[in-house]
C-alpha cells in the first residue's frame, strides 16, 4: 500500500480544522492505512502544531525552515518534494492555499490529481473512487484516479467528520535536514487585511442575504425593505460584491465574512460551498429560489420555490402588517 500523508495548515500556532478531518477521509480511502501528518513552517508555532498533531496522528513529519515562515506555495512545494516518497498519496485542503499548491505539486510528483473531493468510495486495485461536484454544486460526479504512481488530492474542508483528540501518542520526526534549496521566483510581501464596512453583518441575528437572483442593483432596495421590516441586516453572495452593488464587508463566505445569525434568509442564492462556508452556528436557513433543483435546498431548513422579486415585497407587506 502506498503511504498516505496529510498536510497540516496552521495559523498562529493552531492547526486549521481540516487537520482533524483528514483521518476520516483517509479511512474512507483505505481503512487499514496509517496517515502521516506533515507540518511545514518555522519556530515555536510549528513545534506547537507538530506536538498537538501527535494526539491525532501516529507520525508527524516536521519541516522547519526559516523560508517557510509564511507558507509560500512554491517553497512549500519544493520542501514537500524533498520529503515525500514519489508514490505518496497526499491530502491537502481545497482552500486558497491548497488551490495554490496542489496542482503544481501533482505535476512535479508526476502523480494523479483530484480536486475538491467531498467523499471517497475506496480503492479498487489501483483505482481510487471519489465523489466531487461540478457546476457550482448542481451535479455530482464519481471520478477515479489511478494512484499507482501516487496522488495529490484536495478535500473540501468540512466534508469529513472531525476526529476527537485521540491522544494517539504519536511522535514527531524532524525532516528539516532533507530540505534543500527553497529559492523561489515568487516572493511573499505582506498580507493586506480586509477593510471593515459600515455595517457589521457578523453581529446580526437575522440576515436577509441576496445572491445573483436579485438581478439588478436597483433591486437591492427590495431586500433592504424586507430587512428593515424584519429588523434584519442585508448581506450577500460574492457576485453582488463583484458587481459593486454592495461593499465587500457584506459578503458572506470563505472569501468574505463568517456569520452566525439565528435566521439566514438566502434569497436567490444557489448555495455554493464557498458561500455556505461562511454560514456558521447552524442557523435556521430559509431559501427562496426559482429553481426547484438549486443546491441550497439540500442544506436549507425551509425551501420556497418563488421569484424573489415578487416574493420579497409580499413578505415585506405581510411582516409590516403584523
Amino acid at each position, binding site marked *: 500500500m502506498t503511504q498516505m500523508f496529510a498536510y497540516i495548515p496552521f495559523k498562529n500556532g493552531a492547526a486549521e480544522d481540516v487537520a482533524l478531518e483528514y483521518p476520516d477521509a483517509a479511512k474512507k480511502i483505505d481503512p487499514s492505512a496509517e496517515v502521516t501528518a506533515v507540518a511545514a513552517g518555522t519556530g515555536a508555532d510549528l513545534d506547537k502544531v507538530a506536538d498537538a498533531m501527535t494526539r491525532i496522528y501516529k507520525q508527524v513529519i516536521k519541516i522547519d525552515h526559516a523560508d517557510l515562515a509564511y507558507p509560500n506555495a512554491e517553497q512549500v512545494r519544493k520542501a514537500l518534494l524533498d520529503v515525500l516518497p514519489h508514490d505518496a498519496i497526499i491530502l491537502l485542503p481545497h482552500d486558497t492555499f491548497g488551490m495554490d499548491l496542489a496542482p503544481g505539486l501533482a505535476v512535479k510528483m508526476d502523480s494523479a*490529481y483530484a480536486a475538491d473531493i467531498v467523499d471517497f468510495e475506496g480503492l479498487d486495485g489501483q483505482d481510487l473512487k471519489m465523489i*466531487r461536484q*461540478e457546476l457550482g454544486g448542481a451535479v455530482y460526479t464519481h471520478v477515479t484516479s489511478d494512484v499507482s504512481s501516487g496522488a495529490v488530492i484536495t478535500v473540501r474542508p468540512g466534508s469529513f467528520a472531525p476526529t476527537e483528540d485521540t491522544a494517539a501518542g504519536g511522535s514527531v520526526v524532524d525532516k528539516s535536514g532533507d530540505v534543500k534549496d527553497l529559492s523561489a521566483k515568487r516572493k511573499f*510581501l505582506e498580507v493586506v487585511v480586509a477593510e471593515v464596512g459600515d455595517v457589521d453583518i457578523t453581529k446580526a441575528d437575522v440576515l436577509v442575504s441576496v445572491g445573483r437572483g436579485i438581478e439588478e442593483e436597483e433591486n437591492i432596495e427590495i431586500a433592504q425593505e424586507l430587512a428593515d421590516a424584519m429588523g434584519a441586516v442585508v448581506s450577500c453572495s460574492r457576485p453582488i460584491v463583484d458587481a459593486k452593488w454592495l461593499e465587500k464587508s457584506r459578503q458572506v463566505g470563505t472569501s468574505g465574512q463568517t456569520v452566525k445569525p439565528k435566521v439566514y434568509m438566502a434569497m436567490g442564492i444557489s448555495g455554493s460551498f464557498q458561500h455556505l462556508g461562511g454560514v456558521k452556528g447552524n442557523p435556521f436557513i430559509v431559501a427562496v429560489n426559482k429553481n426547484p433543483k438549486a443546491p441550497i435546498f439540500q442544506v436549507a431548513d*425551509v425551501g420556497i420555490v418563488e421569484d424573489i422579486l415578487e416574493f420579497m415585497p409580499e413578505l415585506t407587506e405581510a411582516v409590516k402588517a403584523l
Partner: protein
Amino acid sequence: MEILVCVKRVPDTAENEFELNSAGNDLDRDDLVYSVNEWDNYAVEEAIQIVDNVGGSVTVVTVGDDESEEVLRREMAMGANNGVLLSDDAFEGSDGKGIAAILKAEVEKGKYDLILTGAQADEGAGQVGGMLAAMLDYPYASLVNKIEVKDDTSIHVGREIEGGNQEMNEIQLPCVLSIQTGINEPRYVGIRGIRKVASVDVPVKGAGDLGIDPAAVGKDGAKTRRVDYFVPDLGDGAEMLEGSTEEIIEKLIEKLKAKGGL
C-alpha cells in the same frame, strides 16, 4: 507585454437546469445554454487593461471543439487581438494534466510574458493554471485579484485569501496567474463587437501541429477520469413550503416567529 489568456466554453449555471441523459452517464446536453466561463471574462479584461497601459497584445486560446470558437470570438470582440483553437479528437477526455500539456505546447510556440487563466471553470477543480505553470517551470499565483506591472522582469500580484484578506507577492516574469472574479469589471460585449471580429481568421491546431503525442493526452493519458454524473437524493433537505404565495407567507411567518426571525 505579450499575454496569453486560456478560456473555456462551459454550460451556463445561471441559465440551465441540469438533468441527466437517459443513460445516466452524462448531462442531457441537448438544450443546454453555453457561455464563456465567468472567471475567464475577468482574465481577458485584465489582460486588455494591462496592454492598454503598457503595450503588447492579448491572445486568447481554448482547448475545445468547433463550437468553442464562439467563445474565442466573444473574447476577441472584448478586445483580445488574436484567437487560437486547439482542437483534435485525440484531446477528448483529457484530465487537467492533459489540458495543461496541450496548452503548454501552444505556449512554447509563442513568446509570452504573462499567461492568465480563470481561477476555475465548470468542473470547479481550479487546476489547469497551476499545472501549466509547473510544466513550464514558471512561477504561479492562484486567485489573483490585483496585478501591478513593475518592470519587464517582475510584477506584484495580490491573491485573495480567506476572510477577504489579500496576500501580496512579487513574482518574476514569465509567469502564470489564475484570475479571481472582482479584480475588474469585464466590459460589455455588444452584437456589433461580435460582428466586427466575425471574419477574423482563427487558426485551429491539432496534436500534429503542436507536436503532442496523442497517447499522452485525451482519455488514454488521463490518470483521473469522470465515471458518471448523478444528482443525489435530497435526503433530509429543506421542508418545501407549498401552496399560494399567501399561504406560503403565512407558514413562513409562523416559522420565523418560532425561530427568532421576527
